[in-house]
């Protein structure tokens, strides 16, 4: 347990601080913006695609199963990122005109 903490203390610091930042940042959001906000947050967790890319970069060329799954993961992650940001942008476009 102690060992785990000392080995990962930077990461644990980030986690704890980010929890507070996340709560603070959303603060007093008006109901009108709930959907775009959810959609925007949805796009941000698409950052998981970075993990899929790292996985691919570290995979040996002859490990076909890993390469195949990794490629699908990169594809799905990209879908999450691009779709997420574009759809949020379209929603917000509706509000902007006025």
């Amino acid at each position, binding site marked *: 347990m102690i060992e785990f903490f000392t*080995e990962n203390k930077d*990461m644990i610091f*980030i986690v704890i601080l*980010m*929890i507070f930042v*996340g*709560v603070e*940042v*959303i603060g007093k*959001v*008006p109901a*009108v*913006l*709930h*959907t775009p*906000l*959810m959609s925007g*947050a*949805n*796009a*941000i*967790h*698409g*950052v*998981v695609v*970075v*993990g*899929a*890319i*790292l*996985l691919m*970069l570290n*995979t040996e060329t002859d490990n076909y199963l*890993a*390469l195949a*799954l*990794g*490629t699908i*993961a*990169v*594809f*799905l*992650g*990209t*879908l*999450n*990122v*691009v*779709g*997420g*940001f574009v*759809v949020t*942008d379209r*929603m*917000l*476009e*509706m*509000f*902007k005109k*006025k």
Partner: protein
Amino acid sequence: MNLEIQHIIYLLSSVTFILGLKMLSNAKTAKKGNSLAAVGMITAILTAIVFHDGAVSPLVYGLIFGAIAIGTVVGWLTAKRVQMTKMPELVSLFNGMGGACAALIGLVEFHHNTSIPTNMAVILAGMVIGSVSFSGSMVAWAKLNGTLKNAIRLPQYNLINTAIMFGLFAYSAWMVWVGTADEIHLYILFFASIAYGILFVLPIGGADMPVVISLLNSFTGLAAAFGGFLYGNQVMLTGGILVGSAGTLLTLVMCKAMNRPLFNVIFGAFGAGTTAASEAGPQGNVKEVGPSDLAVQLNYSKKVIIVPGYGLAVAQAQHVIKELETILESRGVEVTYAIHPVAGRMPGHMNVLLAESNVEYDKLKEMEDINPEFAQTDVVLVVGANDVVNPAAKNDPSSPIYGMPILDVENAKACIVNKRSMNAGYAGIENELFFRDKTQMLFGDAKKVLTELVTELKALD
């Protein structure tokens, strides 16, 4: 050197995520915030590829760029082409894709890490949460687009679901404890997680889907953060945790708007109440009104409030309603819209929809602001909304929606309700408003009857 540059860029990307999310919670800056976060994301992705240390074969680069290119085109086109009314299910779909991505990472990384308990725990946690988020989002998506109509409940589903949840936890813990390298356990865990996601969302009613999607959204954030832990990648960690925590808060805020504790949403207090309420059956007779009579009534009103609901979205009637507003305003009738916090299938859904048909932003009034105005209103036109105007929420403690704040349409001089039929609303309960003396029903598809109404109004001039 590469590593230092990478760290600095990841830090900047994390800052764009935080700022972007902050800006997204304010109407004026929201659009810029979204773009800012998108720029941060692109930078982070490029950094991961460009500053990678070690030899990588062209094949791998080809696969990565190919997958990104196809994903971009597909994601872009889907997001651009989707109708505004289908927005909520699309968010759910994209969320599921993120969850699947996290799950796949776990499946592949398992082999390399069976000897290190910490890594294994992180991998399994990411995979389980990602899988649950994936299958859950798919069910939510199917429910929102109407493929899955009803809440399906196994007998004792709460017990079963809770048991599976603890089972998943115990199984993962056991795998880490013995440090098994046997893939069969990995796949059992994977499929059990998928099954849990399905069983978790299936019993929850369609009206609660926004809350569920928001919750699954924070799950995916968490899964991404576990990935960040595994790779020691700060941007994944910050982005993931940020969404995880902000998403959880957003879920709670949404629940508060509906005046329902999250516990009830997940463990289905709705389900228990529904049967009791529907046994009561229809009470008394309803009065019907036709478009031509209604046209006259509206023409001679001073103040009209329109209450839009999901029915409006389904019928794609947002443009006709704008037309109706324009005509009435030209006749000197004051028209405003009353937006319930959970009108439609997602908070803010109606605002987006009406903004699309050029309804002015300040004509859309939130519930607290408009409720005192109903008493001075001649006609309230409820279009495809039901539960948000159900008086049972106020005066029937046995009703499953009891306690949810509603729009006080009953205070108006007359109330016109447009519905396709007398079927119950999404919560599956009767609405006594329809049987009130002041209420008249305008049956039919919203777009069709409103178009007729507009034609009649034009003829009156």
